[in-house]
């Protein structure tokens, strides 16, 4: 059962509604989610330049605080910070301080003493980034890079960016999220974001053993059958199946899972002809998705990675500037 967390708005937003921390997509207003997507759009071109850097966060120090290892997410956060000209410190906490008996608070205080401006936090426990956000000094921003089964908001927002890029918007869209919903923090963040941004219908598809009991309370329609669940959807988001689930009696076998819930061209036929296929990666070919789909014309999986850097640059810029309560400016009329 996913823990119930207090409404995030108070922690995440400044008094004037700017993004102070980014911990979850839940309870954030639509205008703010759209601001993240618009700001990300401004950063996409930076990756195409010969000098892929802008000086926005020059002099700032970003600490990647990973209590749970993740090469891909950490790399994209690191790249995003570097493209903003920040100094980046990568700390694999699981292997260092806390294993020597230091408390999380002691670790935090030490990092603050090193004049860090931002913590990018991944933690195996749901709510850990909230705890850190409540403890840091006012001039430090916290970004959730995935906590337990709770949230992975930057992944969800890069998925929203990808959907908006290919579909133009969210009105009237039917989106299916398929696979291990129960353990997926990405799926939870996606459902919140899709509902806030105005998608017509969000569907969760998976075996009963991998669907949370509160799935419909999240604001989604639940399906256990791919044919029904995928019918006429505009977007199919496949989730990674964590192979250790096979050992915990939640699934009979990889082959059985693929037969029933793996996405191949035959099952994709149920979706709309122009439906796009997404996956947060890394993909298990032949487990949740067939190569013919992953490498096929409707797959936008690699574009998600590219957009992910721009979305993380946007969130970093917005939270750093949110540490000051000044309003964002309009056009300068004299410069």
């Amino acid at each position, binding site marked *: 059962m996913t823990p119930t967390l207090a409404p995030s708005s108070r922690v995440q937003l400044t008094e004037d509604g*700017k993004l102070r921390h980014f911990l979850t997509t839940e309870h954030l207003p639509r205008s703010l989610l*759209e*601001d993240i997507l*618009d*700001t990300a*759009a*401004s950063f*996409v*071109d*930076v990756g195409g*330049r*010969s*000098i892929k*850097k*802008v*000086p*926005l966060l020059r002099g700032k120090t970003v600490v990647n605080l990973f209590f749970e290892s993740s090469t891909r997410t950490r790399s994209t956060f690191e790249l995003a910070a570097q493209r903003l000209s920040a100094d980046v410190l990568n700390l694999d906490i699981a292997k260092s301080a806390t294993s020597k008996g230091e408390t999380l608070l002691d670790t935090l205080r030490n990092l603050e003493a090193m004049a860090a401006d931002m913590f990018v936090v991944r933690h195996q426990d749901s709510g850990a980034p909230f705890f850190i956000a409540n403890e840091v000094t006012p001039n430090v921003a916290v970004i959730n890079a995935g906590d337990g089964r709770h949230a992975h908001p930057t992944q969800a927002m890069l998925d929203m960016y990808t959907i908006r890029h290919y579909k133009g918007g969210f009105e009237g869209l039917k989106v299916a999220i398929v696979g291990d919903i129960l353990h997926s923090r990405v799926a939870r963040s996606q459902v919140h974001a899709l509902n806030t941004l105005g998608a017509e219908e969000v569907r969760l598809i998976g075996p009963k053993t991998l669907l949370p009991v509160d799935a419909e309370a999240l604001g989604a329609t639940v399906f256990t059958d791919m044919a029904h669940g995928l019918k006429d959807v505009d977007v199919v988001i496949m989730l990674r199946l964590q192979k250790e689930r096979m050992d915990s009696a939640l699934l009979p076998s990889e082959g059985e899972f693929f037969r029933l819930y793996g996405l191949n061209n035959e099952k994709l036929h149920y979706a709309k002809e122009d439906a796009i296929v997404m996956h947060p990666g890394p993909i298990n070919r032949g487990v949740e998705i067939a190569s013919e789909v992953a490498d096929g014309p409707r797959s936008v999986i690699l574009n998600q990675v590219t957009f992910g850097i721009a979305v993380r640059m946007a969130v970093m*810029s*917005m939270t*750093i*500037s*949110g540490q*000051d309560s*000044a*309003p*964002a*400016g*309009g*056009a*300068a*009329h*004299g*410069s």
Partner: protein
Amino acid sequence: MLGSFAMRAWHLWIAFLESPLSWDEQQLQTHLDTMAVAVAERFAGQAPLLVGIESGGAWVAEALNAKLETPLPLGTLNPAFYRDDFDTRGLKATVTPSKLPFEVDGQHIVLVDDVLMTGRTIRAAMNELFDFGRPASISLVVLFDIGHRELPIRADICGETLALPPHQRVELRGPSPLIAEIRELVAEDNRETRS
């Protein structure tokens, strides 16, 4: 004597207040005609590249280019990521990406903006330009120079110089037709117009 001086200063102030509060399309076109001639003369024998600063500068650059006998390659620059006031102003949600459809290395660049004030936007624009390459030279063309400089930057070609008090700004509206007017600052705008 002192009374006469005070009266004279008072008349000057009245004259200043009665200066045009707006420029219609015809008045701006006259400025642009003069500026186009100056650009053509200054760069005779060279092949400069025109770069307008978003958004007003891009409108001016386009209008200027239309008046040149031989239109120049045209790019746009948005130095929002290079500003020095990000910590206090934050970032606008939508920043139009810079578009320079040519190599900058070794080229003569003509930066175009609508209003020159402190010089900080021009500094940011030059910093961004150098991330695209090393130009042979950079020149600056502006429609209005309203003073209040905070950096040692000057325009090479200017449509009109104004001595505006700190509470007034020129606002250009466009892209077609181009018109301009003097705007009174309200207190909450002070931050945005400082740079």
